[in-house]
Every structure is written in C-alpha cells, then in structure tokens.
C-alpha cells in the first residue's frame, strides 16, 4: 500500500490558496455564485476566474450559467470527482501531520 508515502492523495491543483478556498467553500455549500466567492476569498475577478477555469477543466466543479433579471448569475457546485479529490487531499495533509510527529 502507498500509505507510507505521505504525499499520496495530495493534489497539485489544491496547492493554490484560492483553489483550495473555492473547494472548501463548495464542500459545505450546495452552490454559490461568483460574487459571493469573490467576497469570501478576497480576490480580483480575473484571478478568481482563472482558478475557477482550472478547477472546471479538471472536472472538480460544475458551472451553471443563469440569469437574475437581466444580470448574469453564474453559480458553481462541486462534482463527485471534486469531492473525492478534495477528501483525498485532506487525508494526505493529515497523514503528513501524523508523519511529522
């Protein structure tokens, strides 16, 4: 088993603070829109959009484009694959901590 390798399960994609934040938020919220994400993570539009695109391309999040009146309202939710990858990542982090002790 690969359990001896502390890095197993760690996902490079989650190395980034913004991407990690997006995943953490989506784990506990069914869906959330772009502006709420931006506010919570305190990042710029462009920065957040880039990271969201990376996550979407990896198949970890789903994008829903909708409208509220005339304004676009883009919401995001986590995919099954994203959930699994994120849980593995957390397990990996925990193993690292235990390994250090």
């Amino acid at each position, binding site marked *: 088993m690969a359990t001896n390798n502390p890095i197993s399960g760690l996902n490079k994609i989650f190395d980034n603070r913004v991407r*990690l934040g997006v995943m*953490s*938020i989506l784990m*506990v*919220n069914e869906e959330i829109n772009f502006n*709420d994400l931006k506010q*919570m993570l305190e990042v710029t539009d462009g920065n957040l959009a880039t990271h969201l695109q990376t996550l979407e391309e990896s198949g970890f999040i789903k994008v829903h484009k909708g409208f509220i009146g005339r304004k676009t309202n883009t919401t995001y939710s986590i995919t099954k694959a994203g959930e699994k990858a994120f849980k593995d990542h957390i397990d990996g982090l*925990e193993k690292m901590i235990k390994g250090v002790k």
Partner: protein
Amino acid sequence: MDHPTQPLETLHDIRRMMERSSRFISLSGWSGIAAGICALVAAAAARQRIAYYYQAQYGKIYGALTDLKFDLILIALLTFTAAFVLACFFTFLRSKKDGVAIWGQTARRLMWNTLLPLAVGGLLIWRLIEISGYELVAPACLLFYGLALVNGSKYTIGEVRWLGYGEIILGAINLWYPGQSIIFWALGFGVLHILYGFIMWWRNERKTVN
C-alpha cells in the same frame, strides 16, 4: 522536495473557509443582552397595563377588553421591533470590526431559517387571538421562537440552539400554567436572552476588546 504547503496551516485554512462560508458568525452577544432588556421592560409595561385593566373593572367600566388587547399587542410589536433593530445594530458593529460582510449568503440563509418558523408561529397566534385562546399565546410565542432558534443555529453560532432549547422548555411548562404567562415570558425573552448574550460575549468577544 518540501512543498511550501504547511499541512497544519492549510487544514486550518480549509476549516476557516468552511465555517465562514456556511455560518453567519457575526451575531453579537450584545444583541442578546439588548433584546433581553427590551423584553423585561415590555413585560413590566404589560403587567402595569393588565393591573390597570383589572383595577378599572372594579370602578367604572372604562377599561374595555379590546383596549387591553390592542395595547398588549402594540407593546409586543414595539418590543419585537426594538429588539430586532438593536440586535441587527450590534451584529452590524461586530461584523464591521471583524471585517466580514454582513449581508451575504449566510445571512440570507439564517434569516430564512429563523423567519419561517416565526412566521408560522405568528399565524397560529393570530388565529388564537381571533378565537380568544389567550392562554396559549405566550406559550406559543416561546415554543415557536425556540424552534426558530434551534433551526437557525445550524447557520450561525451553534450555541444558539441552547437558547432555543431553553425557550422550548419554558414554553412547554407554560402550557400548563397559563396564568403565569407574563413571568414565563419575562424569563424566556428577558432573562434567558441576557444570560445567553452575556455568556456569548464572555466567550467570544471579550478577548477582542482588549
């Protein structure tokens, strides 16, 4: 090949993000204390008004029951408004200090999950007044408010549910002692709020003052 990820720090970060995005944590202890004081003042005023009504009944009949009813409902509405405004005010102050946005998804969810049970309770109480079921008005207030708090506690500081349980227990006892309603009301909306607010302030906000 040490990656710059500090695992412990990262886990803390994840936890903080989860909490912050799913719970409305700016609820201030002062909100509880202020609401409790409002309720105590209102209970005293209502008691006076009731005493006045019975006094008037002995002499001339100038204290009509409909007047008493109207005044009591007015007192209740004023109290609710004052308590709500003060609660929002202190919460606003705290969210400013913590640098958290006050109106977001978490606040909306908290509002919906507490206002729904309250509105349902309000409807029931309205009907109770219409059919003169006054004995059950105070217990119904306490019971539905308690349910609203327990339900809302999932979307804010978790300890709110203990306040909710307290209100439900008082409301349940009150069902069998309708004559003492005003005391239960003062205990539930006054004393419990102040107690809760003080404990919350002591545990969560005291440190940030210094």
